[in-house]
């Protein structure tokens, strides 16, 4: 089908897989193996606006590219913030970046958390481990517009106290009277004065009205399923629970096929899904 009969050499339209240059402004070590990067556009184009829950593809020169959730404040028009744990070849390279280094970045991609839909309702944010990173933009938005929401709760679990992210910020959030922050760890040294136990154990203990609650959950897949079950047990309907899924991802734009989960492309139909829509797929092994 010749739609452009006279074409000879056509300059490439921007390829959705071509990154834009960003400069590392700051690297902060959060925990033993987790780092937060602040990035700024290096070509003067500014940073693309994003919605809480979306992710970018971050390219480290010569090492490769990985999806990373955006963890900064959507209202900050200047900086892109990512938190990553050093687990693979590319994320290890990301954790070795220094301020002034350049990375490639494309995005944002994926579906957002339902912050708008949560207006007028209680909001329960449940995070496991590094799952707090993609939920932090939600917390920023809830607190920035605090009067718009009912009770606001953050339930956060990590393996040990040393794995707790954003400790200073958590302390600040905890000091607010209009924000309930509950933290638990799987195991702790004797000096730990907080809760010990998996994150689901906190769900019955915090106050919110299940009938008018929107829950946003991010963490390991098995944790999200048990959290959702606990929330349902308290009376939160499946269609008001949201989770964020993870799969292998090479393109983020629906071309590479790697991130499929049944009919869903995690990259474009997710990563944030309404639980009632994704739950049937989660019970099938190796789907």
């Amino acid at each position: 089908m010749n739609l452009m009969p006279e074409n000879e050499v056509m300059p490439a339209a921007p390829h959705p897989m071509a990154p834009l240059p960003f400069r590392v402004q700051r690297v902060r070590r959060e925990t033993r193996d987790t780092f937060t990067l602040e990035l700024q556009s290096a070509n003067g184009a500014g940073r693309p606006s994003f919605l809480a829950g979306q992710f970018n593809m971050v390219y480290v020169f010569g090492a490769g590219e990985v999806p990373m959730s955006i963890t900064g404040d959507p209202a900050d028009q200047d900086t892109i913030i990512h938190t990553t744990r050093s687990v693979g070849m590319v994320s290890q390279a990301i954790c070795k970046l220094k301020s002034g280094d350049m990375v490639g970045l494309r995005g944002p991609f994926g579906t957002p958390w339902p912050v708008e839909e949560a207006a007028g309702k209680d909001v329960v944010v449940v995070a496991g481990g590094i799952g707090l990173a993609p939920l932090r933009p939600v917390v920023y938005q809830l607190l920035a517009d605090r009067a718009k929401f009912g009770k606001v709760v953050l339930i956060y679990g990590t393996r040990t106290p040393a794995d707790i992210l954003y400790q200073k910020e958590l302390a600040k959030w905890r000091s607010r009277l209009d924000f309930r922050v509950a933290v638990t760890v799987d195991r702790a040294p004797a000096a730990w004065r907080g809760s010990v136990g998996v994150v689901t154990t906190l769900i019955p203990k915090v106050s919110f009205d299940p009938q008018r609650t929107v829950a946003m959950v991010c963490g390991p897949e098995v944790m999200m399923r048990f959290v959702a079950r606990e929330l349902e047990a308290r009376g939160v309907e499946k269609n008001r629970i949201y989770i964020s899924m993870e799969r292998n991802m090479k393109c983020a734009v629906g071309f590479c096929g790697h991130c499929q989960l049944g009919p869903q492309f995690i990259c474009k139909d997710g990563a944030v899904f309404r639980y009632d829509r994704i739950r049937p797929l989660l019970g099938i092994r190796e789907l």
Partner: protein
Amino acid sequence: MPEHSILQRAHFEQLLGALKTRGYRVIGPTVRDGAIVYDDLNSTDDLPVGWTDEQEGGTYRLKRRGDAALFGYVVGPHSWKRFLHPPAVRLWQANRTGKNIQIEEEKHAAPKMAFLGVRACELHAISIQDKVFLGGSFVDPLYKARREGAFLVAVNCGQAGNTCFCASMNAGPKADFGFDLALTEIIEGSEHYFLAEAGTPLGEEILQELEHRPAENIEVEKAGSIHEKTAQQMGRTVDTTGIKDLLYANMEHPRWDDVASRCLACSNCTMVCPTCFCTTVEDVTDLKGDHAERWQKWDSCFTADFSYIHGGSVRSSTKSRYRQWMTHKLASWIDQFGSSGCVGCGRCITWCPVAIDLTEEVRVIRATDIRTKSMAKETDDGNTGTNPR
């Protein structure tokens, strides 16, 4: 009824000439290494003149025909995705100077390619890949340029192969859309000609440049009976009734274990499939480390790497990979792109080294449908889920 013309075999070379004069690289079937593959054609002599193919599960053989047909065979191991969605594509290059990185997108000439001998199933396959790369919120500009520059000469199949089932998938054997020109080859005694039909103004324009005459009704009828005969000859069939729900409901069917005991996870089926589109990316650097390139390469859901996330592969078993491939092709594709991902070309059957036949797998699952409700089952208890963490 669209107008039909008769193009004599003796004048067929003019078609290649007209395409070349317009700057097209003419690509079509040719014999190489005992198979009919798609490659550049210099002249009609490069076509598999007088050859046919015999196909069965895990078997492909070329045989001599008793005539000098140009298109007397079905499809081989290649498909047009090789040219529209090539096995390896460089997406961009990056250069590092000090702390700066300069990323240069691939500048590409929109290639003018004429595909000669595109079968009906392949037209369907191309339109299916169009949906993947052009139909979503993101467009692949490299695919778009190749696609828009392509001139498609369809050939209606005069015979069906033993692994063909396009009729079941409503994807053939007659080309009904998506071509610039469509031909039906007719050989009768000493007569050898093509019934030609233009599908686009450009196709019409090119047809007008060739020696031709209007077709008689009888010739159009002859072509019609060839199409009908081919449709009756399909070596395989699939009952597609409710196939999406059938496969979704049978995710835990014991047949997947059975097929896994035969499947080598070699990925042949995905390589020969004209609609399989999955790719991976490869980053390469030069020895100095200052020049990097990103390549997009065909990938297969049959590899362990395909579903790897930190901690392991989501689909670690062959069973889960075959199930992913077949349910994607025949079921979830419908949810994703509004049509089946299968066009019934039969390549995955022919080129499977152990002759796994998806039409047979569907038949067995349908006959022993367990309706486990596994897609909706409450399985939180005692199931450790798919997460390898």
